[in-house]
């Protein structure tokens, strides 16, 4: 029973990260109907830039570079801002020129971007794991994580922190999309790009904002991933990115609460699956879910905005 | 015998009823015009019959066979062909290839006979090519077989769509706004072409906004408004029908 609770908590934490990355996939797909494979890589860059901001010096392209050595709580927002800029740049370079091209072209460009970023990261940071410093806040003096005990299950402060940050981010985001002017423009663009353009919505700006939000959320997930697992690696983003896309489909693509629900569900299934079925196949669970989903309920748990239209 | 017999056809999307309880029939070698204001459900009606949508209710019989809910490709194979309101040619294929694709469902070549180039496959390919050339000639596109569809002028693209539809060997031809965007001369030529197709044995249903064309060519006109059939009859009768006038002019009459 305690083991189960422990696994559920792990799943919840992992699922939070998937949920954050899934936001980017779901929002971008909702508006320009593109699977931006590069969100996985932006997540990875989020982790690396967080490390850079937290350490005093680090090797980049083989050269030691000095860094400010900031606190985690400052490092991650900086990483989010940088990665958000990268997201906008990616859109400008690789996707915007293809806005009216066949979908295949943009999709190929997206996979190219993903591979490009992954290998650029490898050139910058090397191919092996880079240590992610302990964030301090949730570690007691003896070096062990602080935790609280609930009926024998140990819940670490870090787990609570990750889930709380995710929930807060999701609430803010949902408020933003539902209540603000830009959010309204976003929803309008997702419904019908050309009509909203006629109604005075600057569609390219809306898309840029979508990339900013999606990339920043990915970077936030990257920073928290580093805090949990204590490393970053150039290829760390690809599979989580793919799983986040699956989470977005699971929740109903184009749907922000769906991304949250899908991410959490996927994280929990994966955690329980690798605990009780097989840990070797942990990466396969998400894909099996995807296959079942596409066969039985392609519109996802909460219904995708694509299928609402149909 | 009616070529097409539709009874009580309805189609709704979610809560919105686009076609409501429409009865409709076409006899052999008839030209029927389907008119109505924008959003009257004409194209939806077309789409339900040609298999793009499944009807919510009602019966559709084509030459005595029920076709409701069949795939568009199956409907085409049974003998109903169509053109599209927004031209939908295979842009990066040549005019000739477009028409050859139209004959797809009348061909028998499979992967193996294609690989082996059996005499039958070769003969079939040649016949299809000849027929495609003849059809291009027929619609007035002789001399452009190698042109990419997207490079053809607008009027020619509409004609190519007709040739492609005819290549499927239909008994019933649906034309969705064939004259849209055409100049008066082109429209004139188109009317002649449609008549000629009919005279050679085809049955035709067309949606058209160009009243001169539709009134001039149709044997019978059916008027839809808000998804319902509000009038039916010869062009002269329909033209004078107060309900039709009201549908077109709307509240302007009342006001």
């Amino acid at each position, binding site marked *: 029973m305690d083991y189960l609770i422990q696994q559920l908590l792990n799943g919840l934490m992992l699922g939070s990260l998937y949920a954050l990355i899934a936001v980017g996939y779901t929002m971008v797909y909702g508006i320009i109907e593109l699977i931006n494979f590069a969100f996985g890589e932006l997540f990875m860059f989020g982790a690396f830039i967080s490390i850079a901001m937290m350490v005093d010096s680090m090797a980049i392209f083989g050269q030691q570079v000095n860094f400010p050595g900031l606190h985690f709580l400052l490092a991650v927002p900086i990483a989010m801002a940088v990665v958000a800029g990268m997201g906008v740049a990616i859109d400008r370079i690789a996707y915007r020129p293809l806005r009216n091209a066949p979908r295949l072209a943009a999709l190929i460009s997206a*996979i190219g971007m993903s591979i490009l970023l992954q290998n650029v990261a490898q050139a910058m940071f090397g191919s092996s794991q880079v240590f992610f410093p302990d964030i301090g806040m949730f570690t007691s003096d003896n070096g062990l994580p602080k935790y609280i005990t609930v009926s024998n299950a140990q819940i670490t402060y870090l787990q609570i922190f990750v889930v709380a940050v995710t929930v807060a981010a999701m609430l803010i985001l949902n408020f933003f999309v539902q209540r603000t002017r830009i959010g309204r423009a976003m929803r309008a663009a997702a419904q019908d790009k050309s009509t909203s353009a006629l109604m005075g919505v600057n569609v390219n700006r809306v898309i840029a904002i979508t990339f900013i939000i999606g990339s920043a959320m990915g970077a936030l997930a990257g920073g928290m991933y580093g805090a949990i697992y204590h490393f970053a690696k150039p290829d760390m983003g690809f599979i989580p990115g793919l799983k986040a896309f699956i989470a977005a489909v699971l929740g109903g693509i184009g749907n922000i609460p769906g991304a949250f629900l899908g991410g959490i569900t996927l994280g929990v299934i994966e955690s329980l699956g690798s605990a009780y079925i097989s840990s070797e196949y942990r990466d396969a669970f998400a894909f099996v879910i995807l296959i079942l989903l596409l066969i039985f309920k392609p519109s996802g748990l909460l219904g995708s905005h694509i299928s609402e239209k149909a | 015998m009616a070529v097409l017999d539709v009874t009580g056809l309805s189609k709704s999307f979610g809560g919105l009823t686009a076609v409501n309880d429409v009865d409709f029939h076409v006899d052999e070698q008839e030209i029927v015009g389907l008119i109505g204001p924008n959003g009257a459900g004409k194209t939806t009606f077309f789409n339900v019959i040609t298999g793009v949508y499944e009807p919510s209710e009602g019966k559709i019989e084509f030459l005595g066979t029920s076709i409701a809910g069949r795939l*568009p490709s199956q409907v085409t194979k049974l003998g109903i062909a169509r053109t599209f309101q927004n031209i939908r040619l295979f842009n990066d294929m040549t005019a000739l290839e477009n028409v050859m694709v139209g004959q797809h469902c009348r061909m028998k070549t499979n992967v193996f006979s294609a690989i082996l180039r059996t005499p039958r496959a070769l003969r079939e390919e040649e016949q299809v090519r000849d027929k495609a050339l003849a059809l291009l000639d027929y619609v007035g596109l002789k001399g452009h077989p190698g042109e990419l569809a997207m490079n053809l002028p607008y009027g020619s693209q509409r004609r190519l769509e007709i040739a492609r539809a005819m290549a499927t060997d239909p008994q019933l031809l649906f034309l969705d706004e064939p004259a849209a965007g055409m100049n008066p001369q082109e429209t004139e030529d188109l009317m002649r072409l449609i008549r000629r197709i009919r005279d050679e044995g085809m049955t035709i249903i067309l949606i058209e906004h160009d009243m001169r064309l539709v009134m001039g060519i149709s044997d019978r006109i059916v008027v839809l408004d808000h998804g319902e059939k509000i009038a039916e009859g010869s062009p002269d009768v329909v033209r004078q029908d107060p309900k039709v006038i009201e549908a077109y002019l709307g509240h302007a009459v009342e006001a």
Partner: protein
Amino acid sequence: MSIASRIDQRVRGLGWYGAFVIAAVAVAMVLPLVIDSARWLTLLTIVLIYVVLASGLNIVVGFTGLLDLGYVAFYAVGGYYTAILFIQVLETRFGVAVSEVWWLFWVNLLVGGILASIAGAIIGYPTLRLRGDYLAIMTLAFGEIIRIVANNWDAVTRGPSGISVPDPAVAGFVFGDARRLYWLILGLAILSVFLISRVIRSRIGRAWTAIREDEIAAEAMGIHTSRYKLLSYAVGAFFAGVMGVFFAHYLNFVHPSNFKLMESILMVSLVVLGGMGNLIGPIAGAVLWISLQEYLRDFEFIQAHPEVRGIAMGAVLVAMMVLRPQGLLGSRRVALEMRPRTVHQSEQERQAVADVRSR
């Protein structure tokens, strides 16, 4: 008509294109007599493997217009099938000497292809109702699953230790040295490209292209689009399966790391580089890229920085799509393929696609 004049007519009928193809094949055939270096013959053999893989993938990506990001999985199906049958089943289980069942290799080329076809159709099936991009995700997922299974199912695949596979042979004649293997793959490549070109230039290829151009119109013209998409997945996968069988016997080894995601991306890059949707494009892409890659392999800088390959691959994919979507050898057809769609897809049309696919 005399035989001479008939031959003359035939030759004239071939035109420049045909003459070029014949010349290229002739050169390829005599090449090993001139080149006496195993290293170069190996390079050419690898080039030819990728020529077939890229040409097969081009059926799905270039002609049917659907992105397959897990093509390597079908390659793995072929490779593991033959390795498991030869070694795990026949040799280990039943004690059959590999040299006694040499003929199985030839049978396996076909069976491996067919198994891959079946896998392709099964993977593609759930995506038929959905937008094309879901195929990309499904194939990507399948590619990863295959590798995970190969890595972990020790009893069958021997996991990360891999399986050793014998050389191809006919009776006592073993295709062991680089030259013989080169001729063998050359034969397979010519046959594959020939088969692909025959299918493409038939009613079936036209149907695929029509689906790429406009799925709704293709369906309305009597093409059962779901069936033809499945056929495209299956035929495309077939060639990967065949190459998988060859590759296993060529390398004498199958190992999960032969079937990484990057391989799939590489194959897409080859198609994109040369030009999607024409027969020569992927061949040119494979010849160009793989020669360069294999040639550069020995350079110190490349060995120290393997990521250069990935950077180049990613940059090629993005740059080609943005700047020259028709590929280096863009044909008239593909030159225009990426032109913006003039037809605005209305709500109704989206609905139409959804409606047709849901049946």
